């Protein structure tokens, strides 16, 4: 089924609402419209569980009156509702406090060539439903051939097509279209009282770049069965290797701590650290919204500020915070095109790869842990403290000897960044937050 787009209508709607807002007393108006279509299928034990297909639209708006802000959003795009929301927003703005730092970004002269970003794959809207269902079915089927797999959480395939339209009263009016596809599989191994589970997925903007069912199944099986028959270990301090998925997780925490919003709110341990050493020379981190065809790529942010490549950490020195327009004004910096509205979001936020193969990192480990998964909520951006439940593989003399579970890892992000001993060459951009395998000199692993 094809999405029915009415391209002109939505763009006109955005433009008209900007004018309507100005005419009803707003000093500044910003409108964003999202027009999306999604398809997803979940298959479990060979049968379809859920099949979802839908189109939906939503509109977000901001008005500023006398430096006072009001926001609104709606999934009802009828003119009466939207005009009511705009008028009400102007009224509500009067009840907020004036904020000298508020205001839309000035119109940038920079224009991003949207086609060079490879955001849209024309193959995705034309994929046949039967083919999409077959992909999920096939992936699970391959995995279930492995006798060690005892149950399945199922396999899913999904596609999304979205169109984003953005207009503001400074004269910005742009739009772009983006596609997305993802294939995932969750598995269990072992008997009910000793079961282990894991999953694997591949997500891409372009269908041809998606991992094959064989590859997704192979990784999901491997990641699940390697955890069978875990042991407990004694509490100790040991070197810890982070697999790429774990480095990504750590980078998510770093992102929260270099967010300009956290900085002006003083909820990050990296407040007032610009230009200072926050890690060793192995740590170089970028946020790059312009990488062609990557998951976090976008031509402009949620305020219409053009995307850029920002050097966040330069060989251990904190070089920049990631800011929306408001945070940038507060901190006397420039917006890095990181706005997600009142907050910030990463584009492609990554730790620059090193030169060492991941196998060599493991073989360098005399005794320690490979961290493969964490669960829980124990991250404190104010202190950088980390305390999480963890699953891992115990390593002795450079070889994996057995899996471990029921452990926690604890440490501090600041200390970890200063203690990265090795950086792998396996950066894969499989999520908007991405990093290679890394080896940390020492972390506390709590067990018995």
């Amino acid at each position, binding site marked *: *089924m094809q999405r029915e787009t009415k391209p002109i209508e939505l763009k006109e709607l955005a433009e008209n609402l900007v004018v309507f807002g100005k005419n009803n007393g707003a000093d500044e108006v910003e409108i964003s419209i999202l027009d999306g279509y999604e398809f997803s299928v979940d298959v*479990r034990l060979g*049968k379809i*569980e*859920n*099949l*979802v*297909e*839908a*189109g*939906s*639209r939503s509109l977000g708006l901001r008005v500023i009156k006398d430096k006072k*802000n*009001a*926001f*609104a*959003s*709606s*999934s*009802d*795009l009828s003119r*009466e*509702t939207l*005009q009511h*929301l705009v008028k009400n*927003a102007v009224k*509500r*703005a009067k*009840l907020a406090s004036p904020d000298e730092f508020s205001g839309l970004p000035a119109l940038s002269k920079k224009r991003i060539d949207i086609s060079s970003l490879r955001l849209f794959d024309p193959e995705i809207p034309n994929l046949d439903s039967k083919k999409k269902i077959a992909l999920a079915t096939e992936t699970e089927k391959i995995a279930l051939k492995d006798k060690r797999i005892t*149950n399945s*959480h199922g396999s899913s395939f999904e596609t999304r097509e979205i169109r984003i339209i953005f207009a503001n009263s400074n004269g910005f009016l742009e739009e772009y279209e983006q596609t997305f596809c993802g294939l995932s599989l969750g598995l*269990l191994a072992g008997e*009910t*009282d000793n079961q*282990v*589970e894991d999953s694997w997925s591949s997500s891409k903007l372009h269908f041809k770049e998606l991992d094959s069912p064989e590859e997704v199944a192979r990784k999901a099986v491997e990641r699940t069965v390697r955890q069978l028959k875990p042991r407990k270990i004694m*509490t100790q301090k040991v070197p810890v290797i982070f697999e790429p998925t774990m480095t990504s997780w750590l980078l998510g925490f770093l992102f929260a701590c270099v967010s300009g919003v956290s900085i002006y*709110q*003083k*909820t990050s*341990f990296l407040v007032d650290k610009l230009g200072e050493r926050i890690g060793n020379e192995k740590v170089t981190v970028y946020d790059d919204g312009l990488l062609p065809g990557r998951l976090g790529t976008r031509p402009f942010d949620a305020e219409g500020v053009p995307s850029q490549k920002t050097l966040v950490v330069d060989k251990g020195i904190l070089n920049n915070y990631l800011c929306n327009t408001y945070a940038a004004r507060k901190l006397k910096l420039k917006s890095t095109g990181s706005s997600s509205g009142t907050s910030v979001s990463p584009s492609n936020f990554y730790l620059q790869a090193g030169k060492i193969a991941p196998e060599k990192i493991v073989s360098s480990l005399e005794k320690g842990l490979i961290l493969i998964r964490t*669960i*829980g*909520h*124990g991250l*404190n951006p*104010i*202190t950088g*403290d980390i*305390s*999480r*439940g963890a699953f891992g593989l115990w390593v002795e003399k450079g070889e994996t000897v057995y899996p471990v579970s*029921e*452990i*926690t*890892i*604890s440490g501090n992000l600041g200390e970890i960044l200063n203690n990265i001993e090795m950086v792998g060459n396996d950066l894969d951009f499989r999520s908007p937050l991405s990093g290679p395998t890394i080896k940390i000199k020492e972390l*506390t692993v*709590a067990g*018995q």
Partner: protein
Amino acid sequence: MKNLPSLAFEDHFNISPSDLQKILNISLSRGGDFSEIYLEYKIYNFINMEEDIIKETAESISLGLGIRVLSGEKTGFGYTNDLSFAKIKKAALTAASIASSRTSREASSLNPVQYQHNFYPVLESPHKESLEKKISFVKETYHSAQNFNRKIKKVKVSLLDHTQFVTILNSEGLKVSDARPLMKLACLAVAEKGNKREAGFSGGGGRVGMEYFSNLTPKEIGQDAAKEALELLEAALPPAGEMAVVLAPGHSGVLVHEAVGHLLEADFNRKKTSIFWNKMGKKVGSSQVTIYDDPTIPYFRGSYNIDDEGTIPKKTLLIEKGKMAGLLQDRLSAKLMQRPLTGHGRRQDYSSIPIPRMSNTYIDRGEHSPDEIVKSVKKGFYAHKFLGGQVEDSGKFTFSVSSGYLIENGKLTAPVKQASLIGTNIDILKNIEMIGSDLKFGLQTGTCGKEGQAVPVIDGCPTIKISRMTVGGQ
């Protein structure tokens, strides 16, 4: 133009009863067993105060419908927020396509249900209250936290209220509606001393009206957040290893939610992925442990008059004196497992498929006094407040403790921060040694996530002693 959109919410859909009946029939045109339309209209207001100013207010309107068709174990689902008959019909055909029979079925004619209960008889509906009054509550909370102590360097307060109107119609002839208010006032306070910085959190709300805040006042909420931040400034990291753990009443309810509740959701048991799937009626924990999930507790965040499939909910016994006694059911699992409905089919919104979820989950009170419990511990850890937790189907879980104390010779001593508790649910249930008589519930601010869907919940428990548990720290 009226000040607020009309609240006779079905007007917003402008779909005639005969069209709805038609849509239910179209959904069964490929021979599905069951079809359902979920109409949702939600209005939402938000106020945010930080850096001494009302930074922004927001208003949001969500209007849409979801159509679901069940065929055996399969679910077809379509949704739309474009409410033209053509688009609704398209969603119905999408959902219908899950079944593949040539014989269409007819839906029963609709028979509106009017139930007699109301678990949230609020006096002052949040959506009818003026923004000025709400702003005054926000400011009061803010200044209470800020003025509590000079070390409080930053405060952030938000007030969120929404009202969700739903109507559920299905091919069995059901037509039933609910209007659910929800409020949440939350305060974050950051205290500084030298280069140390710590945050405290407090909040309140539920399915309540504005009158709620004359009981738990904005002032108290602000003070509680400030107190916690100040106390954490003096807190040390906990020791790591296995030790006796005492769980504070109320906040520790997150443990019963994570370690037990999720794995008693029927879908995980029907699919045999939960560690509990083969344990119904069997002993799974200490005989002191009795656990309920009760969606009918007045004014609680997790309560509802009907669930999101239109079922009248029931207080559901999950664990009785250590034995597994029940599951949280939605329509699909109940039908496939041939069990009665419990009213736990919930969904985040019209664009989501209902699945079995918790509401208000708690461990029932025991017989020990809280003092007696702490006194019985020579050396251990007292978990006071939690950031949250997570569980896997295998029963392995982690809880993040934001604040606690060491227990030395039967007394609470040094304050401790940032610890993780980790274990396996069956081990913990077995290792529950004492349960207090002081059942309490946590803050009315919690949200639970499952399969990408967030729903409001709350959980509770009395003081509990667990003989051994792994604590992660330095």
